[in-house]
C-alpha cells in the first residue's frame, strides 16, 4: 500500500494505524501531523488508519518572524 510522507512515497505492507507508522518513522519531537491536509491530534493517532495514497505531513518548530 502506497502512502506519502512529506511528499516522499513510502510502501506499507498493509493498512496500519498512524501510531504504528510513526513508530517506524521515528520523527523528531516535537511534531504535529496532518493527513490529507487535516490536522490529526495526538489523541487520535491510535484510532487513525492510513489508507491508499494518504498524504502525511509531519511538521516541527522552526524560526519565524
Amino acid at each position, binding site marked *: 500500500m502506497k502512502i506519502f510522507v512529506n511528499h516522499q512515497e513510502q510502501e506499507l505492507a498493509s493498512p496500519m494505524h498512524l501510531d504504528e507508522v510513526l513508530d517506524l518513522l521515528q*520523527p523528531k519531537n516535537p511534531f*504535529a501531523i496532518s493527513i490529507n*491536509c487535516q*490536522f490529526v491530534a495526538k489523541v487520535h493517532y491510535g484510532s487513525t488508519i492510513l489508507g491508499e495514497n494518504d498524504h502525511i505531513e509531519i511538521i516541527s518548530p522552526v*524560526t*519565524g518572524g
Partner: protein
Amino acid sequence: MQFKNNSGFSLYGQEFSSRLLLGTSRYPSPQILEDAIHIAKPAMVTASLRRQGANPSEISSGFWELLKKLNIPVLPNTAGCHRPDEVIQIAHMAREVFETDWIKLELIGDDYTLQPDTLNLVETARLLIKDNFKVLPYCTEDLVVCQRLVDVGCQAIMPWAAPIGTGKGPSNPYALQLLRERITVPMIVDAGLGLPSHASQVMEWGYDGVLLNTAVALAQNPVQMAQAFSLAVNAGRYAYLAGAMPANHVAQSSTPTLGTPFWHQS
C-alpha cells in the same frame, strides 16, 4: 510633576512587561539569536512550523531547545498560508506543538508584497477565536478591516508599517495615526520597521508595541540593534505618555528675548 508609569501591557488578559515582540528568523547564528533575545527581553518570540525532511534525523532540535531554555512566551505564526483552511490547520498544529493558544494570524494575499488577504482575514480570525485561539492578526492599516477584526473578537491587532522585511518604516503615517485614534484595543505594529526611530515613531503615536525581526536579524550587529530597538520602544512609549509639544509653523526663540544685550528696535 509625576511621571506616568511606563507599565507593560495586557493582551487577552495576560500582562507583559515588555512592549517588544521579536522574530527568530534570519539571524547569522543561533548564538546571536539567543544573545539578541537576552538583551532585548521581548514579551514574546515568534516561531513557525515547517515539514520535517524525508530523513527525520535532518531536523535540528536546536531551535526547540533554545525556546525551552529561554522560557519566553512563544507566538507561533501561520506564515506562508494563502488560504483560510491552511491557516486553521496550521494553527491547530501549532497549538499542539507549542502548547499555546496564541497565534499570529498571517493570511497572505499577494506574494510580491506579502500583503494580508484582508477579504478573508476577518472570517479566518472569527473561526480561530471560536476555537479559543488568542489571535493576533497581521493586517494592513485599513480602518474598516481593523474594526471588523475587533468586532469578531480580536482583543489586539497588528497592522503593518510596510511590507514584511522591507525595513522602510511607516509608509502611511496618516492612516496609522488615524487608526490609533479610532481603534481602542491594543495595537502592535508588525512588519516593515527598519530602524529604532521607526519603532519610536509608532510608539509616540500611541501604539502599544512593535513586532519585528529582520531589522534586528540583518543588522550588522544584531545584538546591539536588538538593544537599540528595546530602548527605542521604551523611549517612544515614554514620549507618548509625556505628551508632545504642539508643533508650530513659525520659529519661537527658546531663549528669553527680554533683556537681550544690545537690543534695539530696527
